[in-house]
Structures are given as structure tokens and as C-alpha cells.
């Protein structure tokens, strides 16, 4: 076999020490079944503090809103609700998320309602005094009508803008930064219509800020959008409106793979495998978007950038430090000097290192005799743990049931299959290298799955059990307590079970 192509996960202290508590994790799965999601609520609060530290460094005020859709857990939302009310809020994208946030202790004034909204969602948001992030003039009219019909108070609104690339007004030669088209937001070129709608409905809504969310890892595009928002705020002020906040959305990212070298070796090997100059790295030669056309690699690789040198708070810091293309000052300076608050909506980045997903090994067999690769069947399916769906490639951590036997062989390449009776139900389409062959009864722990990977795609197909979710807290050095996610409250409680 070639040298093993590991993609070992980045695990920071609390998660790393949880992974060392193998006996505890085995006892949890024995009691609650496989798959099992385990959350560390304390880490989400720590991450919020890291984002706040970037605010402080740039002297900025405003709030960090947790994008709830990243994880449906109660423990995480309750833990954030216990943080400083001025500093931490929650961003909800559905009626159920709004109800959940309220039930977890968030008051309406700390809630931002975003995403596609129906009338019920709009009504409840307006009723509890949440800020509504408006997607279009249409939604603005719908909300205003509800406010009038039901005699509700004036609703604080943000307007979500899009289409920043064409806003430069260059004639002829110049630079145009292209952006991916988005379904959301009102294009800047339709801003006039938006402004008159805001003025027309001033009795029902109050503009408190301007928002954007760009689906890109490119900071330049975001800096340009941020600056366009600052300029737009100025237009609003000239029209007599008084917005204060610029909401720059999320997309701060996570670095999943610990070492840059492993990520680079693997992606290079993928290109070589697509070209046929080395054996395939994937189930049936899947190319993750790359293809071989006459000896040249074409297509774009559909993978999350596994190793990111700057992600999360570091990425925010970089974004705030970059000079804006028109006004020249750094984005942070721009916000500060114009006296604007900064809102951010991290989802994935806020739940970095907050959880893992456990699956029991059910069966191990040779995939084919030629390659020597094995097929490992797990007590979970691709819906339970959708790293692959999000293009996140990272190795699971093997938690053996007992002690390894004498002379047990070294690194092996395995494919991880799920518990559905479907050819397509693979946990990874990638050949995963593990330090040794797993045995039935062992656990595989997928680290860092709290952001989107944990339960975003889970469904009841074939009546396989859903993953239960538990919250864990460290007590002393290596002693852990756990409770069901729904029973976690961020206050000292007699509940919870010791390991």
C-alpha cells in the first residue's frame, strides 16, 4: 500500500480530552445507541467570546448572532442565551427556530429573523419584538400589512442587499469583481424602490440596519459589499432614515484538518488519481468535481477547503483589517468612524469544536481482494452525519472497544458505509486511512460535526434510529457528566449523570 493519506482532524483541548475519555463515550453509546451526537455547550460560549475579542480589538460595538440552522440543539442555544444580552443574539430562519430560541431564554430583542419567511413566522417575530432581516420590498409590504392589521408595534428591520459587483459605476475599462448569484436579498440597483417602500411604511417598520450575506470564502468580495453597505447607509441617512447596524452575515468558516501538509498531499493525490497516474482514492473513482479531459484536469473541485489557515474569529479580523476599495480605510475603521454597529451571524464557526458524532462499527470485510481495502459498515447513515454532503473531508478517530491484539496490522484504507440498503449510502466516498483496522464494537468518532454535519440531513428513511443528542460537561480533570440535550440548562443542576 502507498503511504497512508491521513486527513486527521483539528481537535482543541476540551474536545481532545473528551476523545481521550473512550470508556465514557463507549458507555454513552451502549446506553443511548448508535449514532450518537455529543455536544460541549461551554465551547459555544467560549467561541462567542473569541468573536467578541475581535470586536474589542477593533473597538467595535454590536452583536454576534448565532445562526441557529447550523445545529438544532437546545443545549447550545440555552448556553448562548446565558451570555451577555448586549453581546450575543440568535439568528432564526424558520418559525420553529424562532419558537425554540424563545423557549431557550432568548427575548425577542435579541433575535434576528432571517431567511424565507411565511406569514406566521413574520407575525410571531413582530409580536415578540424581534428584528426582521427583510429579503425584498415584497416582504416589507407583507410585514407592514401584518403590523397594521393586528395593531402591532413598529418592527425593527434590516434590509438585505445583494448584487454588489455592478455597483461601482465604472464606465468602460475598469475592474469588476464577479460574485456568485444569490437567491436572497434585494439587488443594490433596485435600492430606490426599497427606500421608497421603507418611507411609505414608516408607520409600521423602522430601518435599523443594512445586511448582506455572500456565499464565498473570498474576503475581497465581502469587503466590497461591506463598503457598499456603508455607502448605502449614508443614502438612507440623507433620506431621513436612521440605520445604525451593518450585518455582514456569516461564512467565517472552520479549519477541519489539523495539518496543511496532509490536506495538500491528499488534494494533489486526487488530481493525480483523476489523471490516472495513481490508483483511485475514492469509491469507483469519484472525482469530487474534477474530471480528466485528454490528460488535463478540468472542472472545479467541490470540496470544503479542509485546512484553512485563517477561519472563524481570525477570518473576521482579516476582513475587518482589509482596506475598502473606494474609501481606502480598513473595514473596521469604516464602521467605527461612521458610528455603525457590527452584526455578524456565524453558524458553523460559532460551533467549532463544539461536538462530535459517534458511530459503532457493525461489520468489517474486504472490499475487494486486489486492493486490500476494507468496507466498514457503521451504525449510522449518510443523513446522520453529512460531512460528505458538505464537502468536508476529515478522518474519524478510532475509539477501540478493548485493547488492540498483539501484532495487529498497521495503517489500512477503508471505505465507510452506512446502515441503509442503498448503494449510495456511503459515509465517505473517499478511501479513509485509519491507524489500524477497526473491529465490530469499536467506535468511530467524527470530530467537529456540530456545524451542519450533525443533523442537517437526518431523516427517518428505513426506520433506522435517529441520533440522540447529549450535552457533556467536564467535572474536574477527566471526569465527565452528561445529560440529554433537551435537559441541559446553563445553571448548576442536580441533573446529569457522571461517567
Amino acid at each position, binding site marked *: 500500500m502507498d503511504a497512508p493519506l491521513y486527513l486527521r482532524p483539528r481537535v482543541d483541548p476540551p474536545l481532545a480530552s473528551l476523545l481521550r475519555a473512550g470508556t465514557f463515550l463507549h458507555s454513552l453509546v451502549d446506553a443511548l445507541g448508535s449514532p450518537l451526537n455529543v455536544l460541549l455547550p461551554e465551547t459555544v460560549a467560549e467561541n462567542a467570546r473569541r468573536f467578541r475579542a475581535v470586536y474589542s480589538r477593533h473597538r467595535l460595538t454590536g452583536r454576534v448572532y448565532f445562526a441557529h440552522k447550523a445545529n438544532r440543539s437546545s443545549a447550545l442555544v440555552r448556553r448562548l442565551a446565558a451570555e451577555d444580552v448586549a453581546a450575543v443574539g440568535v439568528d432564526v430562519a424558520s418559525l420553529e427556530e424562532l419558537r425554540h430560541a424563545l423557549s431557550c431564554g432568548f427575548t425577542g430583542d435579541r433575535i434576528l429573523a432571517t431567511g424565507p419567511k411565511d406569514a406566521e413566522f413574520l407575525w410571531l417575530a413582530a409580536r415578540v419584538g424581534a428584528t426582521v432581516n427583510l429579503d425584498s420590498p415584497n416582504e416589507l409590504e407583507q410585514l407592514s400589512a401584518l403590523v397594521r392589521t393586528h395593531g402591532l408595534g413598529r418592527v425593527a428591520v434590516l434590509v438585505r442587499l445583494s448584487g454588489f459587483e455592478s455597483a461601482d459605476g465604472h464606465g468602460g475599462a*475598469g475592474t469588476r469583481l464577479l460574485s*456568485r*448569484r444569490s437567491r436572497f436579498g434585494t439587488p443594490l440597483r433596485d435600492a430606490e424602490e426599497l427606500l421608497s417602500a421603507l418611507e411609505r411604511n414608516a408607520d409600521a417598520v423602522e430601518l435599523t440596519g443594512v445586511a448582506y450575506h455572500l456565499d464565498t470564502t473570498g474576503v475581497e468580495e465581502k469587503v466590497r459589499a461591506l463598503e457598499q453597505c456603508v455607502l448605502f447607509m449614508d443614502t438612507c441617512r440623507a433620506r431621513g432614515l436612521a440605520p445604525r447596524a451593518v450585518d455582514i452575515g456569516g461564512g467565517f468558516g472552520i479549519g477541519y484538518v489539523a495539518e496543511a501538509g496532509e490536506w495538500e498531499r491528499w488534494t494533489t493525490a486526487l488530481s493525480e488519481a483523476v489523471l490516472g497516474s495513481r490508483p483511485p482514492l475514492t469509491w469507483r473513482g469519484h472525482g469530487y468535481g474534477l474530471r480528466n479531459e485528454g490528460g*488535463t484536469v478540468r472542472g472545479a473541485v467541490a470540496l470544503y477547503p479542509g485546512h484553512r489557515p485563517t477561519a472563524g474569529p481570525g477570518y473576521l479580523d482579516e476582513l475587518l483589517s482589509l482596506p475598502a476599495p473606494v474609501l481606502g480605510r480598513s473595514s473596521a475603521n469604516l464602521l467605527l*468612524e*461612521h*458610528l455603525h454597529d457590527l452584526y455578524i451571524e456565524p453558524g458553523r464557526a460559532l460551533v467549532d469544536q463544539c461536538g462530535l458524532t459517534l458511530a459503532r462499527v457493525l461489520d468489517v470485510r474486504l472490499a475487494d481482494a486486489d486492493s486490500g481495502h476494507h468496507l466498514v459498515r457503521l451504525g449510522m447513515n449518510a443523513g446522520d452525519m453529512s460531512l460528505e454532503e458538505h464537502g468536508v473531508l476529515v478522518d474519524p478517530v478510532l475509539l477501540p472497544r478493548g485493547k488492540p491484539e498483539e501484532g495487529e496490522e498497521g495503517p489500512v484504507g477503508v471505505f465507510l458505509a452506512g446502515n441503509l440498503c442503498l448503494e449510495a449510502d456511503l459515509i465517505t466516498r473517499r478511501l479513509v486511512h485509519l491507524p489500524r483496522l477497526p473491529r465490530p464494537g469499536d467506535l468511530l468518532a467524527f470530530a467537529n460535526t456540530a456545524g451542519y454535519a450533525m443533523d442537517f440531513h437526518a431523516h427517518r428513511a428505513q426506520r433506522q434510529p435517529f441520533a440522540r443528542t447529549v450535552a457533556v460537561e467536564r467535572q474536574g480533570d477527566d471526569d465527565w457528566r452528561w445529560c440529554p440535550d433537551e435537559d441541559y440548562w446553563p445553571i448548576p443542576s442536580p441533573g446529569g449523570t457522571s461517567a
Partner: protein
Amino acid sequence: MRYDSITEAIGNTPLVRIDPAVHGLRNIDLYAKLEMLNPFGSVKDRPAWHMARPLLEGAADGDGTVVELSSGNTAKALALLAGMHGLKFKSVTNRMRVPEIKDLLLLLGAEIEELPGRSECLDPTDTDDPLTHFHQALSDPGSTYLHTDQYFNPRNVEAHAAGTGPEIVKDLDGKVPDWFIACVGTAGSSTGVARALREHDPRVRVLGLVAHKSDFIPGIRTIDEVHQVGLFDPATYDTIESVTSHEALDGMITLIRRCGLLSGPTGGAAYQGAVRHLRQADAELEDTGQRRTAVFIVCDRAESYLSYVRQRRPELLGRAGRGHSASALTDAEVRESARVIGVDEALRWTTTGEPRPLVVDLRSPHAYAALHIEGSVNIVDELFEDLLRGGLPFSKRTPVLLACPVGEKSLRYAAALTRMGHPDIRSLEGGIVGWRDAGAPLVRE
């Protein structure tokens, strides 16, 4: 030398020997092929002209636009060639990370489209690959685009097979060098020169240099990126090695400061990669009495990469400070010298003071225009720092209130001015933000 057109000046570049005292190879003569001396400044002049010529001649009456995926030198050459023929030029790229090159292209009349960054939330149904759009636009029946297609166009290679390669052989008195070293971008120069040299003598060894994977060297592709180039064929190279931006800058500085060659980082990478590779062979030749030759390409010049250098090696462009400076003060010095004034007292001072203070707002003009303290003047902090170098910018009889967003920068300037001898400088505590939060009036004029 008399020419009818600048295009006649393309090619026939000098081959210059590098002083052995610089590279330290005792048995190998190392030559630099100075492609930076082409009229538009780089090795790309040759393929640009060779690829564009038939298109330009075909569009002589034209209102077409020449397009290329280029982040630099090819775009530069094509923009000039297109301009000479009355056509426009558009560059599409996501690799244009050197601001001077972008500005230079704009000066030449080019239009630049920068491709978006990668998606943060993966959408498996995404068909919106911007490069796909680009190629669709090119093949649109009504399109007036002339695509030179440097990564796939065989005329890119031909330009070097017919020009650069034979010139090297001619200048080495009819012999091929033992090693030819080139950085791989479009693979055009390395493939074309290698072909010409091998036809002459197949014993030549070709070293291709690529950028270290996580690194960025303008004009060179990484080992993954070369696989996306249609002209790239691994069989062209006897060896492929990677170089870092650190090595590229080391090499560039050596060529500039010790050899008088005003090379850019790509030439630096080629030099440094060549010397690193040849050191072993040189040791093996010791005491055999044999001599060998090697040729590398200096692709372009240094001037366009000053901000690249500033970002990675600021000390090479360092300037000593001069005059007074607020940023040179320590925090302790600032605390000791600066006077602050709270919002309430500042309000009284600015309305009833005798004399009233001059209020200086240190924020950017755009922010000042949006909202400011009535009657204040705007001197943006960067300018203010420059003003201080020359001496006190205010009369000692004029009291001054300095304001910035949160009262941090103004505190520093207040300390500096006080130390320069001004008797009544105060910094607004909490800044404009504090002023607003206290409900004090801000105006828009």
C-alpha cells in the same frame, strides 16, 4: 536598429553569464536568458504576439475584444497589441493579487474581471462555475470575443520553439545547454524551448519549477494548477521541483543587487531553483576537468512587484522614521502627557469657551461628511501624522479639541502635540461614539 513597429522588437533577447562568484558553482556556467528585455517587459510578449497576430489581422476593421485568462504579463502584452490594432482587451482571472499589475493594466486600457472566491456552503447542484460562463460567452454566436487561449493554444509553444529555443542554441555557439530551467506558468516557454533544444540534442535535461502548494509566486502555478493547463505534459520535464516565495525573493535580490539584473520574483525563483538543483551535479563534476552549461529564464522585471515585496519582506523597503511622530510614543508616555475632556465639559467648552477651541475631527472625509460636531474641521489621521513631522500645525494661542471614533487615536495625538509644546490640547474622551451616546448634537451639513 530601426523598426516600423514595436512588434519587430520582440525576441532576440540577450543571454548573460552569471558571475560564478555569485552562484558558487565551480564547474557549471550559468546563463540568464533576459526575456524581461522584450519591449512589453516579459517573456509573454512572444506568445502574445504569435497567438494574437492572426486574430488581429482577421479583425482589422474590428470592434472586437481580445480576452484571456491572465493575471499579468500575457494580459499586459495583449492589451498593448490590442490597443495598437484599435481593439479592446479584457482579462479574466482570480489570480491578480499584485496591485501594481492591476493598475498598470487599467492604464493600458484593459478591463479586468475578477472571478469570485470559492463557496463557503457547498451547493452540490451548483452549475454556476464562472469559468463555464466565460466559455459560454465566448462560444455565443453573436460574440465578438477573440480568445487567445494561452493555456491550450499550440501557438504559445510554437513562439518559443521557433524563437527562444533557437536563440539560446545560437548564443551558445551551436550547442545546447546541459540543463534548461524554467518556471511553469502556461508551460509555453518550458515546452517550446525544451522541444527546440531536444531536436538539436536530446541529451539536454529540463527542470520545471512550480510554486510550493500553499504559496504564491506571481506567474508560476502550483503542482495541482499545472495539471489544469492543456499545454502541460509531464514528459517535457526530467525533473519537477517546487520553490517557495521566500526562495523567489532571495533569488530576485541576488540577481538585482549582485548581477545588475532587474528581475522580478519569477526570475528569482528560476535562479534560486537552478542553483539549488545544480549544486549536487556541480559537486560530482569536481576534479573531472569537465565543464557544463545551464540556462534559466528571467521572465520579467522587478518594478511591478514592489507591493509583493513589501508584504513579504518589508525590511527590504524599510525607511527610517523622521521628525515627530505620534505612533512612536509609548503607552506610558501617552498617559503621562495627554489631557482628556469628558463630553459634558467639552460641550460647555465648545459653546461658551473663551476663546472657543478649534475642534479637529480625525476621521475619514466620508464619515465626517455623514455626521460631525458642528463647526469642527476634518483632518484625516494619516494627514495629521504627516503634519506633525514638520512641527506644530496650530498656533499655541489656539486651544484645540481632538476627536476620533473612540478617543484612542486622538489621545495619542494630544500627547504628541503637548510634548511638542502646545499648551492647550485636549482629547475628547470616548470620541465621537461617546459624544453620540451621550446625546450630544451631531450635524450633517
